[in-house]
């Protein structure tokens, strides 16, 4: 993995990046397309789906944000940022050509090599689509390496659904099975399903060698993992991207500790087996 900085350099120093484009995905979530200012850094930046960066809004602070783009499409980095507090609001006040600071990529990411040759089931809820979109695009760009690919994605309402247009296009993709659902909503405008994302489990059959990638709100992990286990997926093959409070992103500040693991370094992707061993993980 090529880090932005060599290990001997100050690991807290963000590098400069320019906002190339901004697009609203939902009323609270905006897609940031950014480019590293240093051309060499931009060229060398490599990452794995599921990794994250620390993004700085100058004068406000840093927030850990998953990389939503795929390393198979180099050049621009994409981040979906939901406005929830100080830093994310400051980021939302920025315009194209403004600068942000970036550190990373951090964390383990999804084990794409391990997923090769297997059936892949992706489960996402709300803004949880952000990290798994990277995985989805990565798989699409290496489609022959994977067996069947299914995405189950749920959002509260139509306007809370990330990448609606992109998903509608992908839905017609012959090599992808995409099931979308809204917690509730007007079904006339909505050609897909209503109900929680777990209700989609009834509609799918799971092949024996399936691996699952999950990113849902913290409260939903218990239900989603139970559903996946009931479908016969092994606990070791359920990969969950978890959220914790993070400050440093590099295993120093202690804030993201879950038992003997650091979410920022050992995670953010953990298996269900890890969760069984580490109390309070999900």
């Amino acid at each position, binding site marked *: 993995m090529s880090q932005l900085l060599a290990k001997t350099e*100050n690991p*807290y120093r963000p590098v400069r990046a320019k906002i190339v484009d901004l697009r609203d995905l939902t009323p609270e979530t905006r897609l940031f397309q950014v480019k590293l200012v240093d051309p060499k850094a931009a060229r060398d930046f490599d990452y794995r789906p599921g990794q994250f960066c620390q993004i700085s809004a*100058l*004068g406000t*602070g840093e927030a850990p944000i998953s990389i939503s783009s795929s390393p198979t499409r180099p050049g621009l980095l994409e981040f979906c940022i939901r406005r929830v507090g100080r830093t994310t609001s400051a980021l939302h006040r920025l315009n194209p050509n403004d600068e942000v*600071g970036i550190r990373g990529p951090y964390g383990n990411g999804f084990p794409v090599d391990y997923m090769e040759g297997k059936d892949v089931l992706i489960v996402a809820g709300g803004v949880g689509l952000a990290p798994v979109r990277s995985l989805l695009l990565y798989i699409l760009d290496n489609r022959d390496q994977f067996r069947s690919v299914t995405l189950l994605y749920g959002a509260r309402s139509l306007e809370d659904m990330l990448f609606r247009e992109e998903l509608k296009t992908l839905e017609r993709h012959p090599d992808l099975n995409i099931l979308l659902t809204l917690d509730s909503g007007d079904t006339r405008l909505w050609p897909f399903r209503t109900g929680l994302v777990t209700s989609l489990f009834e509609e799918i059959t799971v092949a024996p060698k399936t691996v699952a990638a999950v990113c849902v709100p913290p409260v939903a992990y218990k239900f989603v993992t139970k559903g996946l286990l009931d479908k016969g997926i092994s606990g070791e093959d359920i990969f969950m991207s978890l959220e914790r409070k993070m400050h440093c992103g590099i295993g120093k500040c202690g804030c993201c*500790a879950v038992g003997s693991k650091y979410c920022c370094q050992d995670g953010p992707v953990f298996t269900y087996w890890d969760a069984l061993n580490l109390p309070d993980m999900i």
Partner: protein
Amino acid sequence: MKTVVLPRENLEPFLGRIARGHDLIVPKKTGNDVVFDYYQEGCQIALEYRRTLLPPKKFFLPPEEVLFRYKKGQGFTEPEPEVGRRVFFGLHPCDIHALKRLDYVFLEGYVDTYYRRRRERTLIIGLSCLPDDKCFCHSMGTDLVSDGFDLFFTDLGEVYLVEVGSTSGNDLVLTHRDLVSEVVDEAILKEYKTFISTRSDLFVQTLDTSGLSKILTLEWESPFWEKVAQDCLACGRCSMSCPTCYCFSIYDQVNLDSISGERSRSWTSCLYKDYALVAGGHNFRPSRGARLRQRLMHKHKDFFEQQGVSACVGCGRCQANCPAGIDFCQVLTSLRGDISESAVG
């Protein structure tokens, strides 16, 4: 290990001379307390102190420090690093062990630039001690120390037995060779043995650490945590005074010109309510019991699982500083079931 002898009356000249070429940090008496502070001529060095208010960590990971100054369009620049050699005199074995624990955190994996610089410019001179009723380093295996110092002074009354732990330590001794003697005779050896055995008889507080990490794992769900936490004020003083608590948070401050500012970090505590709070108001440890448990679990189980040693070095500061008088050793002992639960708090 090379060992020399420093007559007691030569200690002050020794430190005084060191202070001329280095920034010297010493345990100083202030009122009823002893604190680690920079040496000034004529200041009262506490040679027989029990424990300082704050541990040595503040000289390596300050309570608050600027990481970067930034300016719009120019990115982040580090503040000028502090320079010059420091000599830190008077660390007890527990505090030296604690620094070694901090080294695991800050020097392994990503190297923390700020911590490393301070660590590299500081020589450590250890000092022997006698326990009070809150010390339990002998239970944690940290009552003696065989590395992690440049010099270590054992107080034998008339003389200090000085262990030389590094070439830098050796250089100090050689520079001031007129103050030390290379002869460690039978009498001094006997004094040393007597000191060791007398000292180990003085411990009152104990903690049975056998299988502690496993017992803690099994007691995760125990209602006992919430019960103890009823007394806990969640003030974080145990963390601030702990020589191995290293958690910090990072934050920005803007200057009045609104285009420049600082990024800093400061100590935090897992006892604080918003420590594990994430977006959407979800708190991973909403109750005081869960947070108290986190602190003890991290010390005695999680760190142990990561590094093979406990993060607790038995210095007794958490108990000495807890405004609610929580006796953490007794909490852990109760979980083991050795004494009745009502004996706590």
